């Protein structure tokens, strides 16, 4: 057992914090449903932060840490698929990566746009294609989910897809770890933003954080968020399908428990686009349905643990 971060990992996270400093807060007057930055994306890619999984001394656990840390930014960055799934397929695949399963046609997909690499899991086979305007319908309205999203209109023919000699289960495991890592970071940031607000906002002559009705629910959110972090890290280290499914399940369970509470505690401020809370919580909401949601991840966990 060794549960502390290595010096290299601490350095990498420090470097991300430094690089992401200009993106740590929302630009003034911005009232977007989703916030992205091509510049941030480029800097992260050029800095090699999304390629750490392939480095022997760093590996997927460091990739999970990177994903968790980046998710804390109000800016949505496509990191989970690139950092955790791409190394299994082809480290040179063009970003962003979109992960889909059978049945995705007609549905909105995170980060989908012409030029994106779509990784498609169907009947145990892993393949990919580069999205073009034949496959993608730009969303009519801005998505409420705080990710850039577009609808997948159609799939290319089988012959146009690139196939990989990688098991779909392995990809699913990494996908689940990525999901859990991203949700952990989102919950941590949303919790921190809520804590700041309730500590400053006064009613009845005192900060609303001094009322136990809020304190205990926020403390429970801390327990769930802490649990999500440790489950993510364990799964990233062991790469065990059962650990990964439990991590994804717990992340989705926890997300469900906390998102409405956080908005609730902000009162009417929690309904605005002026407070950035939605930039984390509405991404969390998007992740709740990923990989079939809690039920599917629970069944995958039960299968892996008890057969």
């Amino acid at each position, binding site marked *: 057992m060794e*549960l502390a971060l290595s010096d290299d990992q601490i350095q990498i996270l420090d470097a991300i914090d430094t690089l992401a400093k200009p993106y740590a807060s929302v630009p003034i007057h911005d009232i977007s449903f989703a916030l992205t930055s091509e510049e941030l994306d480029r800097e992260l890619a050029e800095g090699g932060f999304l390629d750490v999984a392939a480095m022997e001394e760093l590996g997927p656990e460091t990739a999970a840490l990177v994903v968790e840390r980046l998710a804390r930014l109000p800016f949505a960055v496509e990191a989970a698929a690139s950092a955790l799934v791409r190394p299994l397929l082809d480290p040179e695949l063009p970003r962003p990566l979109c992960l889909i399963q059978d049945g995705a046609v007609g549905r909105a997909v995170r980060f989908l746009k012409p030029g994106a690499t779509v990784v498609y899991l169907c009947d145990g086979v892993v393949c990919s294609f580069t999205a073009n305007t034949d496959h993608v319908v730009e969303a009519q309205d801005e998505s409420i989910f705080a990710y850039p999203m577009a609808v997948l209109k159609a799939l290319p023919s089988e012959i146009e897809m690139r196939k990989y000699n990688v098991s779909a289960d392995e990809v699913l495991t990494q996908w689940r770890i990525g999901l859990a890592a991203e949700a952990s970071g989102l919950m941590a940031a949303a919790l921190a933003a809520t804590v700041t607000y309730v500590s400053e906002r006064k009613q009845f002559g005192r900060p609303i*954080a001094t009322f136990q009705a809020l*304190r205990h629910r926020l*403390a429970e959110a*801390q327990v769930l968020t802490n649990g999500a972090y440790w489950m993510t890290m364990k799964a990233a280290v062991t790469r065990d399908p059962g650990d990964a499914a439990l991590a994804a*399940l*717990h992340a989705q*369970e926890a997300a469900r428990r906390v998102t409405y509470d956080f908005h609730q505690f902000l009162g009417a401020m929690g309904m605005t686009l002026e407070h950035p809370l939605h930039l984390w919580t509405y991404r969390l909401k998007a992740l709740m349905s990923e990989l079939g949601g809690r039920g599917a991840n*629970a069944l995958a966990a*039960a299968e892996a643990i008890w057969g």
Partner: protein
Amino acid sequence: MNFEWTDEQQAFREKLRTFLAAELPDNWESIAHHGPGSAEITAFSRQFCGRLAEAGMLFPHWPVAMGGQGLDAWYQTILAEEMWAAGEPRGAQYMNVNWIGPTLMKYGSQEQKKTLLPPIVAGNAIWCQGFSEPNSGSDLASLRTRAVLDAGEYVINGQKIWTSYAGLADNCFLLTRTSDDRKRGITILIVPMDTPGITVRQIPSIIGEGDIHEVFFDDVIVPESARFGDEGQAWEIISYSLRNERLGIPRYHLARCALDRAVGLLKTNGGWKGEAVKIEAARAAALTETARNACYAIVDKRVKELPIGPEASSARYNVVMAERAVSEFVVEYLPQALIDGEPYLKMHHQRGIVAGIASGAAEIQLNIIATEVLELPREPR
């Protein structure tokens, strides 16, 4: 990071399992579900802990200077996991090796060490902890059991409640009030339970026999040498001693073992079909494993001698969630197991209710998380 046990740690766990398999009688689970404070387990523990001591596994985590092997907190965790998952055959004596022994070593007088340590080391000492009172539960520092020093003797009057193991204990680690200063007016006395003036009344409980009691002190007289540490030093001593005890019982491990047992039973009785039961089992497992990891993160700090902060409260609350999830799973999918035939699940179910109540209520843990982890402004008093 690394979540694997070393070969040595794994070998230690195997050694414990082999020992338990050899030492526990065939009907052990039927004995165990009576509860760690029961007459059956207490009597059994006096032999069992003796043999555990002979095998070098009663207190391997104590420093060599104290007669232990100086093994780190991971070994203490493995020991506790295996014992607790087996129904805690050490009975009340787990408390001795976790904190009473080490506290005696650190704060006891030469005389106290000489008389009180040998029975602990031999695995034949039952202690009870005289802390809670009828009006001092979560607010322990308001306790009122009074000890008055008079001509070299303390005269004790008052009442304790919820005292585990009191009926069969040899000694009580008793918190008394010696002055009105809230925390600095509390003094520890070590009181033999056969001292005249002590009355113990067992309180019938869901957990099992022998686990909770009222203890009355009517003009109980002990010599001044029964004082443990200085007058007014109790709060400092128990804060030190119980810091590690917050995670003393690895309840997540018994919860997971009970969950595995429940799934095994469902598989044989045809109940493991359809999606609902599997989803609920996985949800419970997610909580036992988050609790396990949160606890391990703290053990990791202990091993490195880093200060343990309020994250221990977070881990403990996580354990409460896990206990409840597993109990609820069994109630929903295997209710018959709690009525007949399955002592292990019954044992888990009965003990599970304690998780959120004993050693600091779950709500107190939430208060600590809110104030010390999240750093929310304090509630007005």
